[in-house]
């Protein structure tokens, strides 16, 4: 029963997270760094606000490394949680290959944890964001993610409940996913708007570039996690890899 061995699953989740984190860190270095520099130049050009926190605790190169380390650490931690949730899902959803299940779970995680908050509270570069509202913004952001995860669970339950009533698959999918999307729309209206104004010295083009780059880094992370974990746990992929190793290894 290797498919249900929790320790192996957690180790593979952490490994898949590490791989996904390295990919995201490369995106951070190659793609996010450019708008990051433009945003920092704007921030540096401003007169220092009285009582502003020291932004120069670390040098610029150290912060670039810190940003990459953060991507890897975050991806490994998400990978561990992913493995536990995967096992919980695997007990409930049987008619799916391990690889397909991993991809589905990553897609749902990306939608609830990245897309939903990204549409309501888009990412902002340094230089945007009032320190006085950070706690408020954090609770809005975290609670919206929690709501997204609840919606994913509701959709899962609705799909299963309709299966017991012998609804055809496509109809179940439309009702479960459509219902979740409608409720997400309600959440957009109910959750308060980001209280911070965009400072006039931050150009719209930079903001747009920043948000696309940020979305790209997060998409790379979740795609890497879903594909990596799927390949690591899928029995057919593991058999193929073992066969390749046996063919190469001297007898």
């Amino acid at each position, binding site marked *: *029963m290797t498919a*249900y061995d*929790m320790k192996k699953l*957690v180790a593979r989740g952490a490994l898949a997270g590490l791989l996904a984190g390295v990919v995201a860190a490369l995106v*951070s270095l190659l793609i*996010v760094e450019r708008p*990051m520099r433009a945003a920092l130049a704007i921030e540096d050009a401003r007169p220092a606000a009285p009582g502003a*926190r020291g*932004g120069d*605790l*670390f040098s610029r190169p*150290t*912060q*670039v490394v*810190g*940003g*990459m*380390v*953060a*991507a890897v*650490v*975050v991806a490994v*931690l*998400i990978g*561990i*949680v992913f493995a*536990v*949730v995967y*096992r*919980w899902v695997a*007990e409930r959803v049987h008619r799916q290959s391990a690889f397909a299940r991993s991809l589905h779970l990553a897609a749902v995680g990306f939608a609830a944890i*990245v897309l939903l*908050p*990204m549409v309501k*509270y*888009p*990412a*902002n*570069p*340094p230089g945007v*964001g*009032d*320190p006085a509202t*950070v*706690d408020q*913004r*954090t609770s*809005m*952001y*975290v609670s919206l993610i929690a709501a997204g995860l609840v919606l994913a669970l509701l959709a899962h339950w609705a799909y299963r409940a309709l299966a017991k009533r012998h609804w055809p698959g496509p109809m179940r999918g439309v009702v479960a996913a459509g219902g979740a999307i409608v409720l997400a729309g309600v959440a957009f209206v109910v959750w308060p708007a980001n209280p911070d104004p965009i400072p006039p010295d931050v150009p719209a083009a930079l903001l747009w570039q920043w948000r696309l*780059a*940020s*979305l790209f*880094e*997060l998409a790379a992370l979740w795609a890497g996690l879903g594909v990596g974990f799927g390949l690591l746990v899928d029995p057919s992929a593991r058999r193929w890899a073992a066969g390749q190793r046996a063919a190469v290894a001297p007898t």
Partner: protein
Amino acid sequence: MTTPVPVSRSVRTVPLWAWLLAMSSLLALYLVLQENGMLLGQAAEFIHEFVHDGRHALGVPCH
């Protein structure tokens, strides 16, 4: 093909330690991405500034 072996309930449910591990991973995620001094106080500033690029790039609210 062998006949499927009945799996005991203890093997089929997620063990408690795994849920605890998942919870501590979420706490660690909070400390890396969200901590603004509420739990760690001064030490938070070091973590915050080191991973500052990462927080912004990952779309997390920041000062």
